[in-house]
């Protein structure tokens, strides 16, 4: 498929050679139901053929009446060969570039049992906390680690990358300031360039003026400012003492944001101790591969007083109904899914899997191990510096940790670079007389020798590197305390990671069991289907996942010279071409590393388009009331004003209202954000008309691609009139949800918008008149893009279309199965849904005192994760089965819901108590049902084994119903003292 995008052989030839093809077909592995099962399901839905069903669901005027030009499906075996060929064109040099990305040694026990383990990577965000205690504990460890290392009491888990975390911090400074503050934010020029660039992108639409300069002589005040950002250690390696600067920022009423290197904090005074109000940074070097830019988790820590203004998800401590320690996502009312345009941020999917890895790295090494790693890196840097000085270079005359800015004096940089190339070594080039070298955990003494040999430019080193170690004394090696390179006042004195969890699991056996213990508490796709509407929890095939940890993909630095990343470039180009064919849009940017970032980038593209048209005043963004909360939150960040469009009783956009609003705002209309198929799971017949109306009034149409799984191969966003769409590769294109991230949210645009696509300050990418950098890395979370590449390559055009069709069949089959027992909402005129269906549970509140939450918790007793609860309609459940679930699994799930409906009927009939019943007390823990006293009016068996399959395989919720109120009234976001 890679080389032959168009089928060449004729039908006869195909027939003749068919028997010689590999017999194993990935499409049949990805799609759950067998062909005969699809037919049975169609029968139940009332259709004779798949074709007829699709014709009745997808409006004729938007249907794609040809095959996608993507070639044939490939087997897993074939795809490995193709991907190996691509991977082999990436060259992994020894990399000392730094700039926020470092080699790191992923402990194999973490690589195999977390990163490569579907028990950790297939879950969704832990909203159903009772069956997510494992990763919630890992995330609480992450927060505790961040709190301890930064010296600030509140931390979240987590943000997308260091640069967007800095931008989130700037946003929080704005939210925390009095209305009359001047919108001025200082940025130190020694911050990483990608961070400065992302801040520039973010500041402009918010009307924030950035002052970029040297923090030592910057004039702050007298007028109040929002705040200031400094890098610690600075991008060029210098460890500044920011104590005085903190005072000056505070004197100007601003908040101090410190972007701090997480490893250095084991040796350096934490930001919280020298006056930082916010600390942010990357946790990549805690055991997460560089991955050519991502994914990795960024951290965000702040003071107690700002906890309600903190962006992102925060794990909090609470109790369950039996008084047991239990964890949950706290303070959710800050977030976009509740607060919409008033949210603290648009952030949604974060980087849970990578935050879990970083926290496990800290658990495995413990405080002593981390300190030893940091000391060793620092010592190696000291050794390197001594060697460089002997060779006549000057470096490290100011305090440093792991990075040296080397003055080349009279040496020609070209000679130096060619010597480096010969030894397959990369470092940072500042200008023609200065280079930067960052050492890391993976650096050996041999690497230091190689580096010195490069700087010796072919001459013999007249010393042994080993000799450099004994520089201060003949026998004793350099010790940190002897070193002059971290001045005493900046050395860390406070303890960290003192909690038991960081001081227990240091042997591999203990670690393995700890990881397994947590994993067993979580319900993942390895247990049962996770029918979350709007989330598309489909198969994340092993064949798609394996290449992620191939060194050629995982060990590349994002700023490595492009000629070393040829494989990645091939992969990006192909993936872009395929996404382009699937959506119809000619321009793609893979940079946004989450759906929320895609929305934001897409709206900025629209904003810039209007500006270039001389229509920069256009700032109204129309958003249907049914939209996902990120839409309005993103619009506000993009400098737009949100105007809400009403939906009719069927969940469709109210056309009359749309007409009225577009007319009212015709002079200032910038965009309309439409989710298609709608968030209510229907193909609106009038989508073309909607796009036309928006265009007629000067607006651009942004399509939220959250529901693209209902469209691939059947219809293309560009063809019915939208101008921009984002895709969630972590939904439709098989990147796993990782328990709440990573995600990838590329944007796809029409030709007139290509020139505005995101750019990057270090690597040339994007449009010629681009909106700037959206993410820290030029291609965002590059190392997980092979997953989507492999999915598309293995499915081919026919397979992708088949997947969409079966996703629709599965949803309609579940709707039909549940219809006799529940009211199914928003069926189209023909009584059909798209790829998800909504069941209405509101009436049970009155008839049985049962809430939608009770049903969600009761599903846990049956071994299922609840569908999406109370969204988009309060009191309902939205079920999205996806194409990957077999008929047997769908039947099992429907049977569970129908059985729960029976349990509700018993309450309605009065045969069961309204407050003491299996629903109100769900989920039932093993401890609960085996205790000596049993005061309930129903049996223990009914409580814990309500369906036959639970006797064969029982998933025990580790905690009972969690007290939400307690956790929000008293926020505790670190491991409590033992």
């Amino acid at each position, binding site marked *: 498929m890679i080389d032959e995008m168009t089928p060449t052989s004729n039908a006869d030839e195909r027939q003749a050679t068919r028997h010689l093809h590999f017999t194993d077909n990935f499409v049949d592995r990805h799609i759950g139901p067998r062909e005969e099962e699809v037919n049975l399901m169609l029968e139940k839905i009332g259709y004779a053929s798949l074709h007829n069903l699709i014709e009745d669901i997808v409006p004729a005027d938007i249907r794609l009446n040809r095959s996608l030009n993507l070639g044939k499906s490939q087997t897993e075996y074939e795809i490995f060969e193709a991907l190996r060929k691509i991977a082999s064109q990436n060259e992994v040099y020894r990399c000392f570039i730094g700039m926020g990305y470092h080699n790191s040694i992923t402990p194999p026990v973490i690589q195999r049992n977390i990163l490569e383990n579907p028990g950790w990577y297939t879950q969704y965000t832990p909203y159903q906390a009772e069956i997510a205690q494992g990763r919630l504990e890992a995330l609480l460890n992450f927060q505790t680690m961040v709190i301890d290392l930064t010296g600030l009491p509140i931390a979240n888990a987590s943000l997308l990358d260091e640069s967007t975390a800095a931008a989130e911090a700037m946003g929080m400074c704005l939210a925390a300031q009095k209305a009359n503050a001047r919108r001025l934010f200082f940025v130190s020029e020694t911050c990483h360039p990608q961070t400065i660039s992302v801040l520039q992108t973010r500041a402009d639409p918010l009307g924030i003026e950035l002052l970029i300069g040297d923090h030592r002589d910057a004039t702050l005040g007298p007028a109040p400012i929002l705040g200031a950002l400094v890098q610690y250690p600075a991008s060029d390696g210098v460890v500044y003492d920011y104590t005085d600067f903190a005072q000056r920022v505070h004197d100007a009423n601003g908040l101090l944001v410190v972007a701090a290197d997480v490893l250095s904090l084991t040796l350096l005074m934490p930001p919280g101790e020298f006056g930082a109000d916010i600390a942010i940074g990357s946790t990549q070097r805690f055991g997460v591969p560089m991955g050519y830019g991502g994914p990795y988790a960024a951290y965000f820590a702040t003071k107690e007083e700002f906890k*309600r203004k903190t962006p992102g998800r925060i794990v909090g401590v609470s109790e369950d109904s039996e008084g047991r320690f239990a964890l949950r996502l706290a303070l*959710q*009312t800050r977030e976009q899914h*509740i607060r919409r345009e*008033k949210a603290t941020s648009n952030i949604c999917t974060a980087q849970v899997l990578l935050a879990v890895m970083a926290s496990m790295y800290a658990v495995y090494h413990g405080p002593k191990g981390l300190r030893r790693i940091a000391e060793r890196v620092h010592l190696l840097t000291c050794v390197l510096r001594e060697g460089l000085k002997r060779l006549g270079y000057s470096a490290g005359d100011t305090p440093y940790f792991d990075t040296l800015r080397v003055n080349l004096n009279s040496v020609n940089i070209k000679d130096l670079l060619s010597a480096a190339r010969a030894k397959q070594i990369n470092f940072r080039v500042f200008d023609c007389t200065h280079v930067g070298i960052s050492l890391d955990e993976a650096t050996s003494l041999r690497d230091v020798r190689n580096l010195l040999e490069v700087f010796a430019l072919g001459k013999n080193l007249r010393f042994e590197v080993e000799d450099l170690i004994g520089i201060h004394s003949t026998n004793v090696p350099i010790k940190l305390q002897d070193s002059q390179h971290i001045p005493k006042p900046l050395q860390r004195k406070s303890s960290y990671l003192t909690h038991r969890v960081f001081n227990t699991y240091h042997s591999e056996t203990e670690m393995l069991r700890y990881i397994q213990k947590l994993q067993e508490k979580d319900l993942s796709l390895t247990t049962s289907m996770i029918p979350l509407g709007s989330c598309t929890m489909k198969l994340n095939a092993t064949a798609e996942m394996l290449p992620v940890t191939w060194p050629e993909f995982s060990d590349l630095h994002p700023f490595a010279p492009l000629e070393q990343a040829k494989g990645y470039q091939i992969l990006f180009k192909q993936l872009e071409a395929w996404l382009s064919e699937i959506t119809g849009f000619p321009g793609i940017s893979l940079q946004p590393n989450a759906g929320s970032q895609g929305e934001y980038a897409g709206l900025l593209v629209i904003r810039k388009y209007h500006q270039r048209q001389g229509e920069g005043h256009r700032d109204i963004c129309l958003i249907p009331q049914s939209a996902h909360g990120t839409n309005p939150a993103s619009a506000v960040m993009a400098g737009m004003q949100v105007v809400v469009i009403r939906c009719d009783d069927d969940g469709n956009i109210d056309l009359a209202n749309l007409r009225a609003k577009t007319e009212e705002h015709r002079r200032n209309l910038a965009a309309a954000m439409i989710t298609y198929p709608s968030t209510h799971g229907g193909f609106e017949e009038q989508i073309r008309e909607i796009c036309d109306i928006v265009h007629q009034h000067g607006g651009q149409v942004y399509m939220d691609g959250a529901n693209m799984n209902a469209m691939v191969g059947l219809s293309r966003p560009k063809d019915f009139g939208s101008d921009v769409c984002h895709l969630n590769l972590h939904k439709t294109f098989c990147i796993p949800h990782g328990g709440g991230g990573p995600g990838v949210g590329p944007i796809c645009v029409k030709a007139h918008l290509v020139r505005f696509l995101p750019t990057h300050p270090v690597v040339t990418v994007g449009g010629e008149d681009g909106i700037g950098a959206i993410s820290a890395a030029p291609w965002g979370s590059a190392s997980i893009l092979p997953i989507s590449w492999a999915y598309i390559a293995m499915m081919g055009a026919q397979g992708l279309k088949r997947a969409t069709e079966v996703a629709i069949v599965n949803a309609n089959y579940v709707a039909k199965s549940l219809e006799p027992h529940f009211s199914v909402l928003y069926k189209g005129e023909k009584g059909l849904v798209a790829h998800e269906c909504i069941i209405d549970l509101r009436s049970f509140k009155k008839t049985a005192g049962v809430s939608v939450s009770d049903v969600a918790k009761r599903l846990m007793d049956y071994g299922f994760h609840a569908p999406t609860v*109370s969204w988009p309609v309060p009191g309902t459940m939205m079920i999205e089965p996806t194409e990957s679930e077999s008929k047997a699994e769908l039947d099992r799930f429907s049977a569970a819901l129908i059985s729960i409906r029976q349990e509700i009927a018993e309450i309605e009939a009065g045969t069961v108590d309204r407050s003491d019943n299996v629903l109100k007390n769900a989920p039932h823990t093993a401890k609960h049902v085996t205790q000596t006293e049993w005061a309930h009016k129903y049996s223990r068996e009914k409580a814990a084994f309500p369906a036959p399959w639970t006797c064969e395989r029982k998933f025990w919720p580790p905690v009972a119903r969690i007290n*939400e*109120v307690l956790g*929000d*009234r008293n926020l505790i976001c670190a491991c409590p003292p033992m």
Partner: protein
Amino acid sequence: MSEEQKYPEDLKYRETHEWARRESDIVIVGISDYAQEELQDVVYVELPEVGAVVEPEKEFGAIESVKAAFNLWTPVSGEIIEVNEELEDAPELINEYPYSLGWLIKIRMINPDELENLLSPNEYRALIKGERE
């Protein structure tokens, strides 16, 4: 509690579910029993500072429960002379005593005529009935 007790006769109401109790030129503001019931357990209240000036067209704060956020609108314009600081540590007072200990702010009125724009208890009861159906 009867419907009468739920919406005391001596109060005026806004459609957005705040109540106003006049004491000479001071107005005390809180949220109705219906609003606290809809919100369920209140976990946090965000109130303006004393001295701030509020007006009916602008939100002056928010009440948060575990699953929802409720924006607050003032029934009358004026200067805030006191806020209920007890709520910081005990937001549940809003659920338990919406008309007494759960009050939110006290305003020195600028224009008493604004009280005329508010709903009577009967009108408010009718509004609630509509919303419940």
